């Protein structure tokens, strides 16, 4: 008997080492899994930030322009109308030729013109419109660089790459080097990116129109989803009788939360656009579709928040003779509000990042103008990202990443707000 016991102990002792080793291995797998999650997150963020950061600076080139009335084809006392129709494009081209008189062939000239953005002529026009006394004067004017020239100035493209494989050719690099030596180049914060709408030229493309579109869309979404969601949650938590209908509603809400977002897009297309004939590409329809999509999130989180309110509050209110409705609106909802807001903000963040259903309702198009209302054609930030991601010009890759950074910035802000609210809620 005692012998057996010793044998068992020995056996256990022997197996312990193995068991502990297994334990350590298992713990390591766990650590590795967490680490893998971190690595993915880091790679994703690093990839986007490193690609997007250059987009926040823009490059200007200073060109000596003789704002000659004859070259523009206007009189020296030209009216605003006359100036706005003048040919500033050829003025800029001739100024460039004057700065580089050795450029002769047609192909070389084309390359020379490609140093400045097409936006430069409109900037110059606006400058002259604002100050007509510039007419007839010779002046150095800072002009927005073409995106390819800018990529060289930013150092993204170097001479190491064989000339055939890059868009900026050697002689363009020589010209840019010369300009840089003369102090005729400068780099500054990219305001264009935040003040302009979409453009076919990477250096002129901005997110303003998409941001405004997102704003209008979210406004519609919030105006619909928040009151409806909170009321629905209140009904289900506080008033709903236990019957088939209530069960039906509850099952529906749970299922809607799991319906793929693109199906909501199909609904929007079939019902709001084809049946109700609401305008295509409009934030109004986008907002309605997104509000249907976020409604389950808001209802579910609001219900949880209402549930979490301690029954003593309800009982106290009911005890002093308050009606059910009074109890809910005067006592339960104020306590649950931070939780409800947290859920709503998370729902809004979801809506802000969503793009699939909006593709279905025509919010993917080339739209330059900043929308002025909920029925104007517009696009939203995530769809703009989708559109730019498909654009061939290399300059758009950094714009896409930069737009992603802005979008993520908004999302982080919204989530931080939600977390702060939750923290305050928990303290109570």
């Amino acid at each position, binding site marked *: 008997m005692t012998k057996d016991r010793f044998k068992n102990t020995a056996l256990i002792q022997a197996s312990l080492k193995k068991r502990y080793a297994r334990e350590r291995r298992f713990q390591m797998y766990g650590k590795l899994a967490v680490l893998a999650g971190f690595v993915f997150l880091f790679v994703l963020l690093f990839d986007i930030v490193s690609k997007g950061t250059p987009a926040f600076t823009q490059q200007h080139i200073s060109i000596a322009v003789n704002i000659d009335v004859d070259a523009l084809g206007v009189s020296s006392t030209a009216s605003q109308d006359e100036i706005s129709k003048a040919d500033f494009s050829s003025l800029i081209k001739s100024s460039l030729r004057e700065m580089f008189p050795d450029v002769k062939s047609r192909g070389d000239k084309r390359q020379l013109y*490609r140093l400045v953005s097409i*936006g430069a002529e409109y900037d110059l026009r606006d400058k002259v419109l604002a100050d007509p006394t510039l007419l007839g004067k010779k002046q150095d004017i800072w002009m927005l660089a073409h995106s390819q020239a800018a990529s060289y100035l930013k150092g993204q493209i170097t001479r190491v790459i064989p000339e055939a494989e890059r*868009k900026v050719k050697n002689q363009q690099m020589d010209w840019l080097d010369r300009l840089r030596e003369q102090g005729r180049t400068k780099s500054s914060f990219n305001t264009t990116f935040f003040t302009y709408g979409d453009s*076919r030229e990477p250096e002129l493309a901005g997110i303003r129109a998409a941001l405004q579109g997102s704003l209008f869309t979210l406004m519609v979404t919030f105006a619909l989803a928040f009151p409806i969601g909170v009321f629905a949650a209140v009904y289900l938590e506080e008033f709903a009788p236990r019957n088939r209908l209530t069960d039906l509603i509850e099952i529906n809400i749970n299922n809607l939360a799991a319906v793929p977002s693109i199906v909501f897009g199909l609904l929007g297309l079939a019902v709001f656009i084809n049946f109700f004939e609401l305008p295509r590409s409009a934030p109004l329809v986008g907002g309605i579709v997104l509000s249907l999509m976020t409604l389950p999130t808001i209802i579910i989180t609001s219900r949880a928040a209402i549930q979490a309110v301690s029954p003593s509050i309800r009982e106290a209110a009911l005890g002093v003779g308050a009606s059910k409705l009074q109890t809910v609106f005067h006592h339960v909802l104020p306590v649950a509000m931070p939780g409800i807001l947290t859920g709503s903000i998370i729902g809004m963040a979801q809506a802000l990042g969503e793009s699939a259903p909006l593709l279905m309702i025509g919010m993917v198009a080339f739209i*330059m103008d900043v929308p002025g209302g909920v029925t104007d054609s517009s696009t939203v930030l995530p769809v703009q990202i989708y559109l730019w991601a498909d654009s061939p010009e290399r300059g758009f890759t950094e714009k896409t990443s930069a737009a992603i950074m802005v979008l993520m910035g908004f999302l982080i802000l919204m989530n931080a707000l939600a977390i702060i609210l939750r923290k305050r809620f928990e303290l109570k």
Partner: protein
Amino acid sequence: MIKQLLGAMALAVGFSGVANVQAQGRDSVSIVGSSTVYPFATVVAERFGRSTSFKAPKIESTGSGGGLKLFCKGVGAGTPDITNSSRRIKKSEYDDCQSNGVTDVIEVLIGYDGIAIANSRRAPQLAISLKDLYLALAKDIPDADGQLIPNPHQSWNDINPALPATKIEVMGPPPTSGTRDAFAELALGGGAKSIPALKTLSGFDSSQEQEIKSAMEQLGIPVSVYQAYVESKGKKPKGKDIFKTVAYSVREDGAYIEAGENDNLIVQKLEANPNALGIFGFSFLDENGDKVQGSVIDGVEPSFDTIADGDYPVSRPLYFYIKSAHVGRIPGIQEYAMEFASAKAMSEDGYLPEKGLIPLSKEELAQVQADVKSLKRLEM
């Protein structure tokens, strides 16, 4: 009590004071159509929006066929004003327009574009003939006995030993695209004509029913094809019609990959896959010359000059079409067309050739400008 009542009334009155959200009049030009013309149209639209007081047009890229379908749907603020097309409008589409009340259409020729068969710069440049392309991509091709069989070729050197031993993998646009139509007509049709039996077939007139049928039998085309044509069209086919159904059909077994309406995407995919070929407009080749290279076709490399001269065998004109009924009703249509046809945009030094459009000759340009000014109606 009075407080709450007054509050509600104030709210109600406030609501009623809210400005109407009712459908506003559409005041910007709506454009649909070809993805090949899209880059040119957006550039013009952008400049038009910046330099005039009109709103910038809204442009959706739907493919030439898809665009014309929307365009011909009818007249009214809910339909597009302009459709871009990378081929001429077909008679069937023109008739469709007519029957839907779109009676007056203005055609604007904007320039030329070659269809490039391109691959990644990481792979060697390909030299290929139209016949090779036909044998690689047609759905049915003649075997050694001249009988049509489903295309058996798997790699390029099955067709022509001079070609590389890589898998046939060609990315191109779907049927909504004008590029696809033009490719089928110019490349596949062109290649099929180098096969004597098919060339003979295409030469027969509709009266030569017997000859057509015997040629079909020789090629192994079922007679039902003939019958089906008679049934759907209500008339006897010409040899050319049978030829089209045979020669213009593209493989569906995975060698030809429909890569969507987006030509940019094809460029990106080629860059990632050096063995694949892609079919898209020359302007995209020009724009992405650092990533992809055009194949030499029948000894001619696609370039600005070879396309303008007509030497490059697969090139086609680009157009856009304006709905006359909308001109003057929707602000900015004619002005946009004028901007498009202006020397600033379309002449050799204009900003469109800079984006890869092959410009019109001086005479053609003058003619187009005059047509736009007078809103000349298209007759077909």
